[in-house]
């Protein structure tokens, strides 16, 4: 007789159990001290894991008239192009402008509406797309974009879950621990955007030093953050500033 095995007979977690775990984990994070870029990064990763989609990305209004990609489920250039292109047109831009979800079950059918977005999405291998707003009361600060390789509208269930994840992102961005309580949205949004810039600068430094891709550089950065138990942005900042080279402007890095 073999010893009893706890895993034998234990059913794999149901969809509902998985969702519950995900939301409990985010709730835990939000009451703790967290890194906003790391939170958003985890969020798009979770989207791809628990929703029937192939790729996810978060775009924020940079408050200067452009959209900035602050998190994406992959670093694949074609995917990033599709996100970035939505500065000009596309479901995420429409979603941010109107504050309502946009669901497209067959991208190909929208070629007239979005002459740039449609071919770029098809080239990247996507057939359907959805976008849900990051919204705080009347103010829309960005959009969560979901792409799938298969045609077909996201179900009402999936859309509601995506909206709930987008709400987590909104709260995560806007409730960062701060000494200030002035115009919160602008203060917090700009902080999140600048943190993302630090991450990108660090990815460049790591990729060049090690001769690796941006995707690998980001993975290395995340691993280092996890192993040292330091926040992602702090690790990134230390890496960029640890690079030799005298600042040319009085007041510029390295500190």
């Amino acid at each position, binding site marked *: 007789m073999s010893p009893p095995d706890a895993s034998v007979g234990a059913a794999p977690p149901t969809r509902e159990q998985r969702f519950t775990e995900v939301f409990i984990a985010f709730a835990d994070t939000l009451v703790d001290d967290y890194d906003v870029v790391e939170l958003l990064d985890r969020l798009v990763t979770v989207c791809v894991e628990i929703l029937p989609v192939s790729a996810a990305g978060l775009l924020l209004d940079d*408050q200067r008239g452009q959209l900035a990609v602050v998190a994406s489920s992959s670093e694949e250039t074609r995917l*990033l192009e599709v996100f970035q292109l939505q500065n000009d047109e596309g479901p995420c831009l429409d979603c941010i402008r109107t504050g309502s979800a946009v669901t497209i079950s067959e991208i190909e059918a929208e070629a007239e509406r979005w002459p740039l977005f449609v071919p770029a999405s098809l080239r990247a291998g996507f057939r359907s797309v959805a976008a849900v707003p990051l919204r705080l009361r009347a103010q829309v600060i960005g959009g969560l974009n979901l792409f799938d390789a298969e045609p077909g509208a996201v179900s009402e269930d999936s859309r509601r879950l995506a909206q709930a994840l987008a709400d987590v992102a909104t709260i995560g961005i806007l409730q960062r621990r701060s000494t200030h*309580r002035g115009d919160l949205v*602008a203060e917090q949004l*700009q902080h999140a955007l600048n943190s993302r810039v630090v991450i*990108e600068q660090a990815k460049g430094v790591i990729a060049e030093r090690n001769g690796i891709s941006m995707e690998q550089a980001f993975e290395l950065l995340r691993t280092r953050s996890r192993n040292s138990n330091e926040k992602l942005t702090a690790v990134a*900042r230390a890496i960029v500033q640890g*690079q030799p080279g005298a600042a040319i402007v009085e007041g510029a890095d390295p500190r």
Partner: protein
Amino acid sequence: MDDRVRWNRALLDATSAGPSAPLVISRLCVESLGVSGAGVSTVTPTGKRSVLCATDATAALIEELQFTLGEGPGIDAFRDRAPVLISDLDEPLDFVVDRWPGLLDGLASTDVRALFAFPLCVGVIDLGALDLHRTEPGPLSPDDLAGALMAADSIVLALMRGAGRFENVWHEDAESRSTSFRQVHQATGMVQVQMGVSTDEAFLLVRARAFSSGRPVSDVADDIVERRIRFSPEDS
């Protein structure tokens, strides 16, 4: 500020104004963003603050008080790398009273009612802060907020351009100033390593290359990230 294209053009022209560029941009803010005054302070790597410019006596007082007391919105904006937007000093939130007692005292005899501070930073590049004030209370409109953020971006470029050895570093398009293109920041990190220079110099090198080749900075950044363009210390 209701026309972003024109505003962007005015800012780009102003960045060419040499050492007076921060003052020129500060004056533009007063003309176009519905504020009463503007001032800029920089902070050295060792934390030493200096007042760079101010558009009027009140703006100068705000800069001087922050310099002397080491407290105020500009100091907090620089440290937190986020704007600090206080729309009514007569009904200050608790944290204002707690954090800036000396500044509030110093401004008591003035008619300053609103303070808006913006960090001069791009990722790890931290240069100082732009302080705007208004004699009327009330938040910045979304357009004026956009205008102020763009002005702060332009002061960053002007400061770097003034300190660097590059004359022409950007095209006259919004994108050169934009911080929304992630490959530009990735390219900056790569060039920093390739050239053994600081982040701010790498930031300028990428833009200078875009200018000299007549291409958008995001395209050049793509080439750097895809390793089609490589910088070498021997080139300079």
